[in-house]
């Protein structure tokens, strides 16, 4: 514990240099911009900027990119409250009560509540990371290939079991990710797989291209279909409103705490920020005294989803740093960044690159404080950006996506693939195929495959290796339980229906 605090202080020393503070500021400003604009989000914003950071020091780069992520988390709330348009999927639940508040002329109050609870959620998650991550990393040092595969298996099972989408579709999306990850040179045997004689496919599919296409272009196509028109309330925040709202907020400490816990749980097991925000909103409605008034402009209805979304978004970095398994698409992109910068995520990171890890953790504290101050003071500016007609914003975003896709490998082929992924993203989103598992599988594909093959190699092809000791067996068992959870809960529902039916007759 004390050692962690010492490490954290050293981290602050790393993070607080003029250069890193500047990168932090740039990251947050760009992040809020990305969060506000439709079609650009945390995941593809980081993906587009990633190639530009190849020459930077890894610590500065991750500070900038993670701040971009916090900024995007903050930014999503602005559009939800002022325009009833969620800038990010995780701020959909914020529109339920945030927009009515805006219409009643309480936009300032709603935004202060949203930003502050985002901050509280993030702070809770960062504290969790500070004290839990070193422990998890120490524990994970004992892991061998079977344990790593089991953890990855658990990650993917929790997508299937915990997701809101139909399980079969989650599986399809995930397996497509694995299949795409397998394209190209097989790292173990050196065999070419699924290239069909095309030299462009030798390097395989880069997940950055997939992220930019699926989340960027796909989102723009969806927005076009909805026929977007920004009609919103004016946003104004002054110190008076902020202080008044802050005086109100402590009343909702229970809602807040519940949201923090839900958020962290959903972030670490990769449920993600979006389901966390919905779950937290639902819970708050069920437990609140004013539960039946939810949806008419209750502050609690803003506090709950925002806290959970930010807690989930932040805590998603915990498994990424300690186990090399990202808890959200954006964390997946950051993980890809680590690999590109030459850092191997996982337990050894805490020993070999102390500066990097603790610099990042320290920057999370600073980034969120700076972020809160920035968004509170610059709301009118962001609201003005949203008044730019979509006919200008849309093509500019596509141009930025195209440049982002090209800069990954300096290949024209990638830009074309981005368009393909964009179309896939549009169809998948509309048919309720989740996109996050595909991205995660693309990132983890090679790692998961290597872990699987190494375990198989160790055991001579015997699957029983995944149940060979208590640790790996319990992880696998947990994974299988979560995988089958939809069946269990559906069975329970049917049983309940059947037992409920005879009564009304």
């Amino acid at each position: 514990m004390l050692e962690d605090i010492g490490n954290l202080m050293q981290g602050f020393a790393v993070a607080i240099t003029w250069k890193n503070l500047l990168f932090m500021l740039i990251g947050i400003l760009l992040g809020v911009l990305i969060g506000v604009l439709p079609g650009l989000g945390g995941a593809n914003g980081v993906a587009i900027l990633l190639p530009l950071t190849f020459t930077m020091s890894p610590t500065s780069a991750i500070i900038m990119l993670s701040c971009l992520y916090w900024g995007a988390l903050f930014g999503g709330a602005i559009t939800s409250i002022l325009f009833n348009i969620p800038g990010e999927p995780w701020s959909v639940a914020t529109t339920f009560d945030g927009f009515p508040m805006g219409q009643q002329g309480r936009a300032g109050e709603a935004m202060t509540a949203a930003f502050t609870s985002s901050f509280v959620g993030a702070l809770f998650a960062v504290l969790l990371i500070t004290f839990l991550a070193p422990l998890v990393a120490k524990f994970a040092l004992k892991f061998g290939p079977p344990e790593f595969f089991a953890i990855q298996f658990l990650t993917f099972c929790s997508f299937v079991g915990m997701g809101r989408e139909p399980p079969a579709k989650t599986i399809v999306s995930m397996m497509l990710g694995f299949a795409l990850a397998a394209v190209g040179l097989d790292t173990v045997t050196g065999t070419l797989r699924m290239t069909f004689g095309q030299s462009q496919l030798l390097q395989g599919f880069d997940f950055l291209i997939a992220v930019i296409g699926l989340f960027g272009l796909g989102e723009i196509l969806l927005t076009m279909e909805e026929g977007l028109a920004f009609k919103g309330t004016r946003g104004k925040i002054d110190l008076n409103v902020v202080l008044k709202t802050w005086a109100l907020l402590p009343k909702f400490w229970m809602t807040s705490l519940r949201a923090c816990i839900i958020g962290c749980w959903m972030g670490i097991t990769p449920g993600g920020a979006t389901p966390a925000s919905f779950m937290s909103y639902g819970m708050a409605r069920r437990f609140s005294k004013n539960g039946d008034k939810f949806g008419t402009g209750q502050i609690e209805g803003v506090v709950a989803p925002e806290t959970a979304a930010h807690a989930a978004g932040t805590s998603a970095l915990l498994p990424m740093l300690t186990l090399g398994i990202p808890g959200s698409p954006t964390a997946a992109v950051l993980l890809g960044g680590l690999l590109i910068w030459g850092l191997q995520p996982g337990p050894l990171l805490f020993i070999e690159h102390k500066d990097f890890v603790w610099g990042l953790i320290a920057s999370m504290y600073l980034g969120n404080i700076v972020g809160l101050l920035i968004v509170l003071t610059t709301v009118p500016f962001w609201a003005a950006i949203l008044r730019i007609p979509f006919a200008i914003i849309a093509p500019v975003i596509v141009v930025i996506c195209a440049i982002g896709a090209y800069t990954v490998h300096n290949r024209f082929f990638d830009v074309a693939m981005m368009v393909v992924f964009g179309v896939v993203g549009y169809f998948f989103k509309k048919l309720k195929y989740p996109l996050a598992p595909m991205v995660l599988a693309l990132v983890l594909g090679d790692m998961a495959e290597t872990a699987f093959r190494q375990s198989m190699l160790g055991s001579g092809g015997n699957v029983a290796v995944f149940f060979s000791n208590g640790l790996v067996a319990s992880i696998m068992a947990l994974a299988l339980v979560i995988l089958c959870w939809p069946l269990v809960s559906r069975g329970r529902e049917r049983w309940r229906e059947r037992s409920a039916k005879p009564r009304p007759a």
Partner: protein
Amino acid sequence: MDAKEGSARGDLATRWVELIVALLVVLGGLVVIVDSLRVGISWAEDGPRAGYFPFFIGCILVGAGLWIAGRTVIAWRELGGKTFATRDELKPVLAMLLPTIAYVVLISFIGIYVASALYIAAFMLWQGKFGLLPTLAISVGVPVALFLLFEVWFLVALPKGPLERMLGY
């Protein structure tokens, strides 16, 4: 595609899209399986061959795809009323997608900057009904700003065409 039943002309029915996407998934799974068989799914002396892992992936893909397709067919009647997208919704989507495809093709010929200028200008004139002056200002201004940002400041080379070559880049 015959999507007329139960909905207005030109509307895309969800069940058809659902079925076709599921069948494409099955097809993709088959491709993975066939290629895995080609590189070998068995054990070599030094361990599992390259197709060992993807083979399972392919099998699961085929299974899940068939499952979704099957469920769509079973619930075919109930799904009849659902539309994937109406004609009026599809129009703007295509109005976005087709120029974007043209834009990507153009990039390989005239470079990304000129293509971006044309793309933004076309979009603003056609979709936004902007006047000539604002269109010109934004469609030229954005690529110039990007050029300064990438080529001059970050020294990242993007695809360039005849115009940039003429200017000496």
